């Protein structure tokens, strides 16, 4: 297992180096002029030049790259111009917010989609199957910002059940002491149940929005892979041997059908991080996606580079986790590594 992790991490190094170079080049090729943007509405050519010198943007590209890499080696991702903060601090403060939301959405989607997919496969052609098809098609065809706005309109504006879409906590609550950065966990650690409830209430609607989006691939993949497993010989043998339906479906069929579902899960997680950008905008969620988009709009290089790098690392870790999960689910995958 350790060897597997080691070799996986070793293959990730070249791709991370590639990411560093490519993001640096890409941000420089963007047509915007950072200095002109930040010189303000009443800038003269001299004041733009002054700002350019201050930001080190007047140096030749190779020199800028050396500056960037040597700072990066010291763990310094630079400072964002649009928020004025060091990028590393911003990302570490915002990543938990995005992660909490994404994971909540994913767990919710799993909890609904997997049983739904299994039922649809077992009772193929029944009303459950049709409902599954309908809901997943709707979920994947509605853009997330639309679902988000719709849910806000219904649950906050019309019914008043959900709290105001004002980010992670209501204005009159203070954040729990940071341990993990996940408000739900931190508030439980602090035994502050009121804050827990408030954080959960804020999280509910955006998490549902994400879950609706993530339902489709998980449910469809569960259904398809269950179907192929259910028609395989060992299931027929199990049924012939007189095992109960539950044992056949859950113990034998589902375990074997899980591999493609786990693979999909990895992909869905990365989709969700993308969808997050829009959901964060709608719910004023102080996450990493909205941060990166704003930075991109203002040609603010450092956060864009930091964001892409953080995401690259996240994907490497995610893929590693999925590989390990493979090994646990299917011993054959372990020996192949």
């Amino acid at each position, binding site marked *: 297992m350790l060897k597997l992790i080691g070799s996986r991490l070793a293959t990730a190094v070249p791709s991370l180096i590639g990411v560093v170079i490519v993001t640096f080049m890409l941000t420089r090729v963007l047509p915007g002029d950072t200095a002109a943007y930040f010189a303000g509405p009443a800038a003269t050519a001299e004041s733009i030049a002054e700002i350019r010198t201050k930001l080190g943007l007047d140096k030749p590209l190779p020199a800028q790259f050396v500056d960037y890499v040597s700072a990066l080696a010291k763990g310094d991702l630079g400072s964002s111009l649009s928020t*004025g903060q060091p990028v590393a601090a911003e990302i570490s403060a915002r990543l938990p917010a995005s992660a909490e939301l994404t994971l909540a959405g994913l767990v919710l989607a799993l909890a609904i989609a997997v049983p739904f997919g299994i039922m649809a496969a077992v009772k193929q052609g029944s009303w459950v199957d049709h409902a599954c098809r309908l809901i997943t098609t709707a979920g994947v065809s509605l853009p997330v910002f639309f679902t988000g*706005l719709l849910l806000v309109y219904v649950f906050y504006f019309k019914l008043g059940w959900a709290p105001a879409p004002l980010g992670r906590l209501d204005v009159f609550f203070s954040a729990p002491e940071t341990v993990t950065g996940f408000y739900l966990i931190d508030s439980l650690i602090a035994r502050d149940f009121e804050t827990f409830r408030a954080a959960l209430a804020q999280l509910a609607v955006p998490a549902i929005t994400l879950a609706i989006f993530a339902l489709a691939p998980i449910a469809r993949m569960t259904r398809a892979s269950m179907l192929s497993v259910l028609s395989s010989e060992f299931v027929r043998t199990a049924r012939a041997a007189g095992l109960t339906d539950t044992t056949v479906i859950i113990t034998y069929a589902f375990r074997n059908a899980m591999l493609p579902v786990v693979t999909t899960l990895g992909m869905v997680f990365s989709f969700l991080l993308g969808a997050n950008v829009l959901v964060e905008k709608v719910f004023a969620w102080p996450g990493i996606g909205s941060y990166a988009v704003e930075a991109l709009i203002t040609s603010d290089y450092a956060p864009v580079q930091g964001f892409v790098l953080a995401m690259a690392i996240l994907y490497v870790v995610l893929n590693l986790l999925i590989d390990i999960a493979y090994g646990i689910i299917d011993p054959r995958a372990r020996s192949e590594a």
Partner: protein
Amino acid sequence: MNRREFVKSASATAVVTGTGVAAPAVFSSAQAQARNETLLIVSESGPNNLDIHGVGTNVPGYEASWNTYDRLITHEMTEKDGVRYYDRDKLKGELAEDMNIGDMSVTFKLKKNATFQDGTPVTAKDVKWSLDRAVSVGGFPTFQMKAGSLEKPEQFVVVDDHTVRVDFIRKDRLTIPDLAVIVPCVINSGLVQKNATEKDPWGLEYTKQNTAGSGAYRVTKWTPGTEVVFERFDDWKGGPLPKIKRVIWRMVPSAGNRRALLERGDADISYDLPNKDFVELKQAGKLNITSVPYSNGVQYIGMNVKNPPFDNLKVRQAIAYAIPYQKIMDAALFGLAKPMFGAPADAQTQVAWPQPTKFVTDLAKAKQLLAEAGYPNGLETTLSFDLGFAGVNEPLCVLLQENLAQIGIKTTINKIPGANWRTELTKKVLPLFTNVFSGWLDYPEYFFFWCYHGNNSIFNTMSYQSAAMDAFIDAARASAANGDKAAYDANVKGMVDLAFADVPRIPLYQPYVNVAMQKNITGYEYWFHRRLDYRAFQKG
């Protein structure tokens, strides 16, 4: 004060007064009390720097600076069309208790009891250090100071602990008003110098994150991109103690949600909603909606007069007659703007800016002018706008494109992202575009100096060059400084007439600053910087 303390203090009050209400009611009354002293503002974007002297401080950052720092002087309030409006011509002391204007200098006596938020007294040394900083850090603050002929540290002289003199390098009517804008704020020099480094002698890194002023509010919490929390400074000496104890400014990127928050009564104020939302909210009547035209600001259609075809006056006039002015007012702005077109043919030129042109939509005339200019079969060009303000710019440009097509001008619309817009403007190559300019200092010659003068500042987006125009502008500035009213009036009229005759840019309208507030919020004040002043707000 956090929520728990609120609950505690409120339960204590309940016990003392013996009202004996049930626990949940106590909790909600505590929240109600907290809400009554707290103002919740929602807007699209927040500050990137709390100090206006910082590198690249954005416009929301100006609002933070305005409310947390004091200036030597500020404007009196007056009323204009039912809205409290700053009085351009009447100044009063903020940190200064007395202002004595001499021939070539102005002397300020500081309020003796004024202190910074950390308790240290405000002295003349702090004032000089702050003004020195404004003219030395470069970039926007230094540029703004220059606009009032405040250029060198030697101009700021400490007379004694509580007296400062500002020497003039030349006579300029804008020097005194320029001391009342946001930039010349007074900073706690001792505190900032303690936190300055060799690389950063002016302590810009410290003031980026921390407020070090004597203003009515201080920032107690700032999460960039998410929220800013202001608490009242109870020892403020700059004016009457504000009623609002705490201001929470939350960034809500989605306009639809900002509107929902307002309509549900969860947010108190929002000021950057789309025009359509403002109109609908106004009609619904549940909220107070205030719309005030930008002072000294105009949205216009600009043309590059250096290159063909717009180097030809007749082509420019043709465009001016082809613009669907009223359609733009109705469909792009929903009526929320002040028209700057269609003045009656016999109207006299005013000594004022902005003022409407005499242009109206007349396609036949436009076609004829185009033919006279030598383009009977029309021409092709691109029409550019800033995507950062697409909500208004896009429908505006589409409407214009339609009308231009009718007189044979084929246009391709060029959408330029916000980050690139200024770069493109600086290059001065866009043939046809729409843009807004507005100046903090509300004087016609100030506007014309930046937008029409041959020294070709970045805002002379048309590259317009005219010796006659330069003469008018320079003469207007000189006569304003000398107080020669007759000459001044003649020159302002001269420059306005010439600008409308040569039409390098076609004024469309004066945009509105739209603010939506709950009915129980009063005290909104319009300032030249167009941001919110928290100090006068009241709730209840």
